[in-house]
């Protein structure tokens, strides 16, 4: 599985990527949206884990930009807020199951990545 992680907290995504690599998941990260788009232009991914609140853009907007380049990619949103507003926005975009609140346990994240990539959760 190839995963793109995008969060403005560089230390968070770098550490998450390393821990996913240890579990056999090929993870690449970016800490700002332009870098994420540049990576998507060059590499293929199965799924992206996007922070809902990014500098200059939000995760939902970034999802649409990535989808325009890679329509088959799937998405999970990550947020520190856990607010109803975020929940509703992410649910509308990707289904309520594809929304994780920081801090997330690595086992929960891995299970969710597998579920979204392999499971029947096609959300249209």
């Amino acid at each position, binding site marked *: 599985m190839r995963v793109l992680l995008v969060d403005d*907290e560089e*230390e*968070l995504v770098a*550490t*998450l990527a*390393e*821990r996913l690599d*240890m579990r056999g998941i090929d993870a690449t990260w970016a800490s700002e949206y332009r870098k994420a788009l540049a990576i998507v232009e060059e590499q293929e991914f199965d799924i992206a884990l996007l922070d809902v*609140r*990014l*500098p*200059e853009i939000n995760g939902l907007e970034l999802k649409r930009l990535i989808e325009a380049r890679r329509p088959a990619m799937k998405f999970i949103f990550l947020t*520190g*807020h856990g*607010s109803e507003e975020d929940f509703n926005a992410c649910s509308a975009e990707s289904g309520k199951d594809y929304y994780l609140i*920081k*801090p*997330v*346990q*690595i086992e929960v994240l891995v299970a969710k990545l597998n579920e979204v990539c392999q499971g029947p959760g096609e959300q249209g």
Partner: protein
Amino acid sequence: MSSYHGKVDSLGLSFFGSMTASISHELKNSLAIINENAGLVGDLIALSEKGHPLKPERLLTIAENIRRRVQTADDIVRRLNRFAHSANQPVVGVGIRDIFACTIALSERLASMKGVSLSIAPGDEIEVQTLAFVVENLLWICLKNIFLLAGAGQQVVLGAHAEASDIVVTLRCTPEIPVKQLETTVAAEAQPLILFLHMQVQADPQNSALRLRMPIRFIE
């Protein structure tokens, strides 16, 4: 009278809510990073049990990352504590640059989300007798509306100078933004605070700035 004060209180509550929500997000990020670093230590130990060598320098780096993040979280909590106490502070003497620094610290994360940088112009400290929380609330409304008008790369410099018995605060925006529009939106949204502080809000299009004039000594 009570209705008028009620509007000031209502704006203050909204301000308090926005700031504490933003601060809680910052704390969540610090906790998430501490969580990942602690998890990484566990992963490295698990790998060492399978025969991979565990490098002490790697553990030291992770320990330092955790220590640094705990320090960041402590700074955030200290800021939250200062802000919480300011909400019920009476009229006191406070430096305008202290008010700027507090407002910037509270707004910085939201500013960076918009790609806006905030700074304080060089100059001498001016002590004002005021309700710092209300002034910070008003400055936040100004900044929030600047964020709506500005694009990434916007710089906002907060400055102040004394004019007779007044202090004039300026929020200078580079590159230019429509400051007349800013004046209108701020005057509408912050009207109860403007009246409460006996303040005048005026656009300065030549300098792409918003000017806020208020008495140095708060008038009850």
